[in-house]
């Protein structure tokens, strides 16, 4: 099931929500974008788990301090109601019910000792909780 905890991918994954900076070109509102660095990390985790065919499920579910929280999971294919988006040769599977809260989002990765892991830059988030894992829209 796609609602598997984000931590199933690996303990290093953490999420943070940021409003899109006005100085940076916005991601088109009709898609979800993943940076090359984030896509590489997903492929690295999939390879570590011995997965040949895979994609990244990107969704939201009710929860967290602000009502909505992100869900990431590496899966072997899309579900029937998933919208499939391809960036950097990585398939993103976005459940249609989640898409409205994620359209225009950029998924990035911050590494290093102080890195934040996977970061959602979601223009739909109007409030986020302190740890950044939860948002309202």
């Amino acid at each position, binding site marked *: 099931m796609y609602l598997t905890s984000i931590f199933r991918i690996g303990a290093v994954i953490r999420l943070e929500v940021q409003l899109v900076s006005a100085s940076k070109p916005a991601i088109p509102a009709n898609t979800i974008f993943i940076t090359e660095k984030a896509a590489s990390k997903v492929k690295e985790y999939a390879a570590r788990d011995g997965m040949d065919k895979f994609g990244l499920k990107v*969704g939201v579910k009710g*929860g*967290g*301090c602000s009502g909505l929280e992100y869900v990431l999971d590496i899966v072997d294919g899309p579900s029937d109601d998933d919208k499939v988006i391809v960036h950097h040769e990585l398939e993103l599977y976005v*459940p249609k*019910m*989640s898409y409205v809260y994620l359209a225009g989002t950029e998924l990035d990765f911050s590494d290093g000792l102080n890195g934040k892991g996977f970061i959602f830059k979601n223009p739909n988030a109007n409030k986020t909780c302190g740890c950044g894992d939860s948002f309202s829209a």
Partner: protein
Amino acid sequence: MQASSTNIEVGYDALSNGVAILDRSHMGRILASGSDALDLINRFSTNETVGLSDGDVVVTVITSDIGRVKELITIARRSASESVIMTGPGAESSIIDWLNRYNFGEDCKLSVITEDTGQITISGSQAVDLEIDLPELDHVIASEISGMPVEIARTSGPFLSSYEVLVQDADQLSAVWDALLSAGGTPASEAAFDVLRVEQGLPGRSGEITDDSNPIEARLGSYISFTKGCYMGQEVIARLDTYDKIQRRLVGLLTESGSSLSEGTALKADDREIGRVTSVVESPSLGRTIALAYVRKAHAQPGTTLDSVHGPVSVTELPFSAI
């Protein structure tokens, strides 16, 4: 609906020394089905509702994003995929709408079963005299009363300690009521329950547990898990607790003998309003009017005298019966 005694003293005596019964079928009941139902509720309420066993009963508070009370609910888990949720009167639809708003394809179906079922509250020290199956605290059991299928849940509060008899078929409510009556139950009114509740310093749905209050100030701390992790409103509630940021306290008020009070009355100190009366009853055991009130923390010390349009009142420890 079953007729209950309107004589407060009869119900009061039964609640204090015998066994009282009250038809509470007007309270809300929801059937929660699906393997994700309790997990979803766990993400939107203060207490831990996952990891329960079949037959467990848990009280939890659904909170808003700013940590205010949306509804206090009692969950009786039948199985991993089915539970009965007891709510306040008329609160079912708003709870269902609220939770469904955050359900993105999870296995959770919430249905109102209030009209199809019944609910009778049993309370009092002699409940065992009814000779029906009684569960342990915070548990629910399936049983029969005079051959009619019921579930009996024992709750730890926050209201008067009670057994909630859930009658599975509303058409059998009268027969179950008659059976409890024949077994020695004394019909009591909601007003009699309210007198005992206020004497014991317990919050009620009408005055204290409102959407203007947070669970800590409403004395619902027993139903908050501070270790379960995130839920909507958790950051606010954790901050209130950690930094003792509660601005007002629920206190007891003693009036001078012979004087009265009314709900909503403003309480003043040095001509400044510092609180409001939330519940008022005539206490048979104390022989005077007593009340619950939210007052600002600085004026919540027992022994403090506050002014009201009805005369001076004295802040006292809760529960009242301790004085």
